[in-house]
């Protein structure tokens, strides 16, 4: 039986094991993580180890419950990467017990409920993120204000008082103000930051006539920009090391860009220009690290392109037309449901030509 398998041992071909792949991914995540801790909030460095250790514990528990060997699964590093990615999507100030809930969902519901690594149809980190943002909307959107790098602009824009403010949150509020200021006040009363928004609204109503310009300023002068550029660098590292292929990142980014160009053309006045759009929110992290999760993405090249474009478009739709500030997680989960179909329809060049021939 086993004599039919190619003899990979007697050939000196460097074989990459799963844990090497995961190590490269973690290496690529490191600079962005450090920047996020430095520029955004140092508590990242607290919740990351907590997340990783608890993820290992939950994984061990799940393996024990399923009666599987602990060692191979724990040492492949996949759960570490998933927990790490989830942590990067969470506000650093999230209470630790909520973080643990998220990790539990990630390991148990996202991964082992479906049969462990390789069998889960949904990206576990995004499952956990979705559960968290639905369960704890207040703490999950309560990002620490990133100190803008340019204090002059900071003054002129008068965003200092805002809490709960990634650039995307701010933009969202800004958009809502333009539509109906009262709504924002109401909404934010609920989350307990009404006074600051009142002030912000008062400050900005006259000075921010042009939404795209403001958005550009806001994003390009926030320290999030540097974090996002770090993700981009990490993504290029993964591409060069051939851990990921270019198809999904490129497709996601072009999907997002096309959507924003389309929005701008439809003159709703709320569209971001492409460059800030790509640097906003979780687009770069998602395009290079989350959507490329091989287990839950499409397999063939054409399938990857379809999958990526779908993620990009859905992200923008959710971000612009729903009540969530960032749509990446839901976009990924939605496209995950479509992967079996994509995989069945787009079987790659050889498969297709064969079925054509027959």
């Amino acid at each position, binding site marked *: 039986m086993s004599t039919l398998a190619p*003899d990979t041992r007697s050939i000196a071909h460097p074989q*990459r094991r799963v844990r090497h792949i995961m190590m490269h991914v973690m290496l690529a995540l490191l600079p962005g993580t450090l920047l996020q801790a430095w520029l955004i909030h140092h508590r990242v460095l607290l919740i990351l180890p907590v997340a990783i250790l608890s993820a290992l514990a939950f994984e061990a528990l799940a393996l024990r419950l399923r009666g599987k060997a602990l060692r191979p699964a724990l040492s492949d590093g996949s759960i570490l990467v998933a927990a790490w990615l989830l942590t990067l999507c969470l506000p650093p100030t999230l209470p630790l017990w909520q973080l643990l809930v998220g990790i539990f969902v990630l390991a148990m519901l996202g991964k082992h409920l479906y049969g462990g690594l390789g069998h889960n149809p949904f990206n576990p980190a995004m499952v956990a993120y979705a559960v968290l943002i639905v369960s704890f909307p207040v703490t999950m959107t309560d990002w620490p204000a990133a100190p803008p790098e340019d204090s002059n602009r900071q003054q002129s824009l008068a965003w200092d008082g805002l809490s709960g403010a990634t650039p995307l949150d701010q933009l969202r509020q800004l958009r809502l103000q333009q539509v109906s200021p009262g709504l924002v006040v109401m909404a934010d009363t609920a989350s307990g930051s009404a006074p600051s928004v009142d002030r912000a609204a008062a400050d900005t109503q006259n000075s921010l006539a042009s939404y795209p310009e403001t958005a550009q300023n806001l994003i390009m002068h926030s320290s999030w920009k540097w974090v996002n550029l770090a993700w981009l660098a990490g993504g290029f590292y993964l591409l060069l090391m*051939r851990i990921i292929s270019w198809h999904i990142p490129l497709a996601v980014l072009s999907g997002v860009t096309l959507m924003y160009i389309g929005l701008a053309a439809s003159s709703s006045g709320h569209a971001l220009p492409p460059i800030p759009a790509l640097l906003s929110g979780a687009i770069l992290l998602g395009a290079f690290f989350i959507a490329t999760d091989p287990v839950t993405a499409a397999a063939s090249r054409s399938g990857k392109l379809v999958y990526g474009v779908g993620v990009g478009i859905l992200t923008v739709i959710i971000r612009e037309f729903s009540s969530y500030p960032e749509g990446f997680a839901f976009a990924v989960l939605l496209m995950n449901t479509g992967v079996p179909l994509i995989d069945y329809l787009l079987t790659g060049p050889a498969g297709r030509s064969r079925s054509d021939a027959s």
Partner: protein
Amino acid sequence: MALAKTCMKWLSLAARLRSGRTRLHGGLRLPRNKPGLPVSGAIRSLALPPQLILPLLDYRRDVLTPRVQPGQQVEAGQRLAPGLIATARGRVVAIEARPVIHPSGKSALCIVLEPDADQAHETACHEPLSSLTAERLDDCGVQGLGGAAFATADKLRSARQGDAPLQTLLINAVECEPQIACDEALLMCEAAAIINAIESLMQATQCRRCVLAVENDKTAAIDAIRHALQEHPLDLELVLLEPVYPAGAERSLIRRITGLSLPAGERPARHGILSVNVATALAAHRAQLGYPLSSRVVTVSGEGLPEPVNVRVRFGTPVAEVLRQCGYSAASGNHRIRANGPLSGFDLPSLQAPVTASTNCLGIHPVESLPAVLPCIRCGACEEVCPEQLLPQQLYWYAQADDLPGSRRFGLDSCITCGCCDLVCPSSIPLTQSFRHARDAQREQARQERMAELSLQRYQAREQRLQDRAAAREEKRRLAKAQLNTSRDPIADALARARNRRKPHASPRNAASQPSASAPRPETPATDAPEQDNPPEDRSS
């Protein structure tokens, strides 16, 4: 390190783009010199073993019917069965089941031959011909030496009968696997003979273009060929290919040289292409000179040998004998013997199996434990290297689920089971093995379907026959009845018949018709008819 590799890859890609030759998709650059290739190129002929074992199997693994008996003396080159010739003069000592080279270690009916003592060298047993014919190839038992062991005569005939004229004659000197060097050794040692062989093949096929494909890192072999070409100019294109595994596979080679992508299962002959392994070309030339094909070059390599060697082995020599003569002793360690190379071959369960035309390599490797198999993370590494551009990870799902239509949809028929996907899989999943099993299952199913179809046809033919017979009988009876009805008086007829029977010597004509009446024929009503013609006349007379 890996960055440097990537840069190299881009550079070589640019170089390939410049050279304008269709690139092999995927594939792997595998190291050629682990555990070391024979670099001298010398080919040593092994001594004849005490017994030669010739399996009664053809390349389709159909069983052949022997034409000789145990105890019979046979000549070298004598036909022992259709498609099987004696590889030495000697005596048939037995026709019995012996292990053959097969992954399952199965046995097959073999002719066991005890060669005469003076058979150490191969001798010509036919007259030399001025030009090569398919009959001669048949007579000399020439088979493909590249691995598949097709009957070369059939290949030549199909190339001639193809709808299109022969455009390209492709002489394949690209090694099947990086650790095999038997073709390289031939190029180095017998370059002049190879050039002659190619010339005679070119004449026999009347081809428009002739290409000799070699990897570009076999410098010594290329030099030898260039040198021979200088001495004997020939309109031969020497194509140097990147040494990317599996460059030697027929379909990918044709794609790279002619730019033609053959669909799975399509014969190159239909597109005017005949591809012949270089060793086969040489064997065909020797057949023209009268020599039967009775030996081949085998690369014996692996960690179990101090130095890998290329040896010329007579067909029918047991593997154990080859290894012994190459200096390997089974006591030297815990080794497994692998036939046909690490990637496309298999471990041999029995060393008593004989070397055949498709045995290009014997590897002696240490027994190691397999790495743990992890779940597929769908990383796509396998897809990147697959030379047929399949999605091995998807194919694997369907193959594991025994879903034949699904596997075929994902290209099971196109898979050349090259093993590239296994080599890169980070989870060490035995992908190729599952494809081979699925392929076998598919063949088995196809065979059963064919058998079922055949027996259905037989059944239907029989039914038809029976029906026809019954209809004919019915027709006859109807005619007889009709005739009976035309006679005037049935009672008078019966009386006349009875009278006839009582008077045996009535008339010569009646006497003649009598035995037929009494003959015990089952179809009495019909055969009675001629007799009934007579009585009315009889009575009237």
